[in-house]
């Protein structure tokens, strides 16, 4: 925060030097792929079945970031800082995959009385972890009941 000494060229403040900035062009790419399959039907007059399968894969990543040599931009040699940025493109990687399966049935016990049951399973795999840490986890739910029509 103290002022720079009044010298031309690369300014300095104590031991810290300022040399402007450096840039390169880089590509960031996101992809999402989904597959789903659903089937429902009535094998008998009393029984109704349904099932769904879904799969999703989502990724986001930079291509390798290739910064130019800082000596092209400034006259001084920057010896105390590594400007190769070899891992920079991996800082914000996203890599999720999720599978969801559901099964359901309903069976007519009598006129106006139907038994229902269904289940759902979802599993998410996070291979990158970003901001919130690794978010892999799964969820399982079963549900059952009776339906009355009148």
């Amino acid at each position, binding site marked *: 925060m103290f002022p720079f000494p009044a010298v031309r060229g690369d300014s300095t403040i104590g031991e810290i030097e300022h040399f402007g900035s450096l840039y390169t062009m880089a590509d960031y790419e996101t992809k999402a*792929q989904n597959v789903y399959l659903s089937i429902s039907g009535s094998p008998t007059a009393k029984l109704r079945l349904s099932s769904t399968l879904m799969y999703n894969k989502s990724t986001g990543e930079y291509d390798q970031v290739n910064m130019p040599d800082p000596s092209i931009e400034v006259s001084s040699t920057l010896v105390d800082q590594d400007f190769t940025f070899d891992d920079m493109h991996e800082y914000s990687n996203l890599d999720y995959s999720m599978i969801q399966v559901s099964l359901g049935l309903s069976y007519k016990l009598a006129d106006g009385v139907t038994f229902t049951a269904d289940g759902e399973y979802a599993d998410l795999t996070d291979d990158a972890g970003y901001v919130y840490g690794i978010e892999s986890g799964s969820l399982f739910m079963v549900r059952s009941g009776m339906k009355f029509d009148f």
Partner: protein
Amino acid sequence: MRHTKIFVGVGLLLLLAATAWGSDTDGVTQETSFWIGGHLIDTSDYYKKVGEYRSFEEDVWPEFGLTYKSTTPNSRFFFKGHYFDRDEMFGMISTKVSDIFTGKFRYNSFQRQTGQDLLENIEAREWLPSVPKGGGKILTHDITDPDADYNYNRKEILSEFSALLSRENNLRLTVAHRAIIKEGTEQLISNSHCFSCHLESKSAKVEDRTHDFQAGLDTKAGNLDVGYKFGYRHYESTTPTPMAYYEDAKHPVKGTSGAEFGSRLNYDGSSMPIDAKPKIEKTSHKARIKGAAGKGQFASSFALSKATNKLTDLSAKSWAGVFNYAVPISPKTRLVAKASATSITADDPYIDVNTFREGKPSAVDFDYIRYSVLDRTTADFTAQIFHRLNPKTTLSFLAGYNRVAREDYPVAGDGTTSSTIIGQAKVRYRQGMKLTTSFKYRFEKTSDPFVSGKGLFEVPGDALEPVHYGYDAATGDSLWGYFYYMREDLWYQAITTEPTDYHEVNLSSTFRPSAKTTLNLKVKGVIDKNGDLDSLDVKHSKLNGNLSFTFMPDLKWVLSGGVSYRMEKSRGPVAVALFDG
């Protein structure tokens, strides 16, 4: 919450009264379906992402739903509701009495799980050659509530009523109210400097209330349909504004010079409010008119609105006008022309900040007027021609122009104006029920798209005029130098993600090879680039594809499936400041 209960109560009474009034015991049909059961949820590992929009109570819980439908020759009543748990439920009532009265009430609530930002990607320390183990400027963080379970519940309650007041001019009154209530906890992050840049995370309550009320009249005036609608929206957070402690101003390495650093900060050594939410009131008026003009039909509207943050007494005013006209040019050709304009003007508050190095030779007053980047006038014109080439093929061509004139950005009173010309061609082919295919190409050419007023890069060195900032304690000589804020004059290079050239293609096709099978294909591709950014090659490309099918081998079974693919690629500059340490 009291207002919500009043609105809901009055609404339900109106619905039931209207239904009872309109009921006719003759020809009544009623259907009721009641479901009762329970559910069990189990989770493993991190459940907040896989079940982001789910409510979690790990155990067995009761659940029920009810559907009821009643119809008479001149009325209809419908109810549908489902209770999953106390955080997730749905209910809807709709009724219609002849053409005199319609009413709808809807309640919907769900839970959203939100994660905790671990702040691990923002931790760094400057390296100094003389202090091998570090000792320079530092960025640290504290998570004060690491076990916090952040989530909120969102309830939306909608009531809509429409009543025919007079058949003579078809005068109809419409009244609607919508409440959105958001309750839960959220993560707050405060940023304190300049003793050391320090981020602190903590939990805060969320209690947001939004009320949206609308009332309108629609009628016929001769051959014209005219209408007016009044709107009032109120948003408020009912929780106390959270406070955070701003640390003492000190040199980041030496821990000294509090006064020197304090003059560059607005707050230090004190607790101050953070994340203060606004209290918004918005009123709006909208008039519309629709009718015949010549051989065509027109529809037009004009709207005025004003939104005010009651806590800061800052307002934004806007107006918007729309005019659409559709006319047949020939038996096979139709023209649709659209014109619209909008204007937004926001208050320009005076920002009073601490005087930089107050009482010293290089003191600077950084007070300023914050001109709003929202201030703008926009205009849109499009003309589209539809032409039926033959019974199976339709062509359409669109030409358009868009203009955005910014008042105060990037320079107050001398903003930039962006202009876009648009061209689009579309062909649609239909072969009975068997095949429908369309292909569209669209381009947009923009001059002076929005760019950031701050420079992305900095010129190396310090080609600046030094300022007198003090005196040498030993010799009394004047000291001259530069301050960080002066380096803004060295910043250059406009940057934006907005394109100057935009190209889009769309293909959509539905194919029915038999009565049992349907195939759908959709492909969309976009390429854009900005050619105005000197040597920066900023561009984007997108590709969306979707293929789906439905197969019904018999009346008992249905099989459906599909695949989709989405790719987005952005090319832009990655810039770093150069430091030797």
